[in-house]
């Protein structure tokens, strides 16, 4: 049993960085960022049943473009929509 084994600090550093940079790169305040996340959830929920806690947002810079990538776990399609 290795219940209390400390995690590798290189991996922790990498995870913390990735988390910090999503917020930094968005250039939004933390409050705006949360609001954006809620907006995304609200819009997608109109069409899909989703797992809100599984949502991942990622912002990457590639080729001088900023790319927002949202991963949204879908549970089912809402059939009753208008």
């Amino acid at each position, binding site marked *: 049993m290795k219940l209390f084994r400390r995690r590798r*600090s*290189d991996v922790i550093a990498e995870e913390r*960085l990735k988390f910090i*940079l999503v917020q*930094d*790169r968005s250039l939004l305040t933390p409050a705006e960022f949360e609001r954006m996340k809620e907006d995304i959830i609200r819009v997608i929920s109109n069409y899909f049943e989703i797992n809100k806690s599984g949502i991942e947002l990622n912002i*990457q810079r*590639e080729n001088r473009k900023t790319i927002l990538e949202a991963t949204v776990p879908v549970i089912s399609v809402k059939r009753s929509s208008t």
Partner: protein
Amino acid sequence: MGRTIVVTAGKGGVGKTTITANLGASLSKLGRKVVLVDMDIGLRNLDVVMGLENRIVYNIMDIAEGRCKINQALVRDKRQSGLFLLPASQVHTKEDVDIDSIVSIISAIENSFDYVLLDSPAGIEKGFESAVAPSKEGLVVVTPDVSSVRDADRVIGLLENRGILGLSLVVNRYDVDLVNRKKMLNADSIVEILGLDLVGIVPEDKAVIDSTNRGEILVNYYANTIAARAFENVARRIEGENVPFVSLNSQNKGFMKFFRRGK
């Protein structure tokens, strides 16, 4: 016309000045004519790292404010006849700088050199802007820690917004032993996160501090140290040579799979 490259980081103390001096000397050892411009107005240090502090007569603010000609301010390196320093003023502050004058000084110099390297101060305020404004390319320096990589990411965003094409990355103060023990961010992860072309990994090396104490540029006087070899490899990669990233110690297996991203 020469290549004008800003050496920058965001975070202070990560090795911008050390890399500017050693990269400049390495490029001049390869036969290039190089001028190093100290843009840390009010807190100049490039002169000290190069050991030229006693030879300064005029500085870039004297040129900007019409007290001397460009050639009168240039100081030749002690070892490399093709390497020059354009010193910063120590009595002005960064707020005193007129960015347009700096831009015209640099564009006048570019014609007579193969490389113009601008040593940027810490921060993202006016000192940073003055170093970036005349530059066409950027060399971003990071140390393998969360704060430094985070600040570098911010600076990369600013450089891209200002139209600086061709950004490359140097990881400085790399401790292979710590990396092997999984206690330091490895270069692969940093490259993946920042998405720039890697042009060098410079190990933590006590010889850097020793040579700086003496005012002797490492690659000029202690060319056999591991950091000096790493600096020379940075120069060769900037020259376009495909220099493989070799292991910094024999036990290391992990980090040879570097790649170029984002093209």
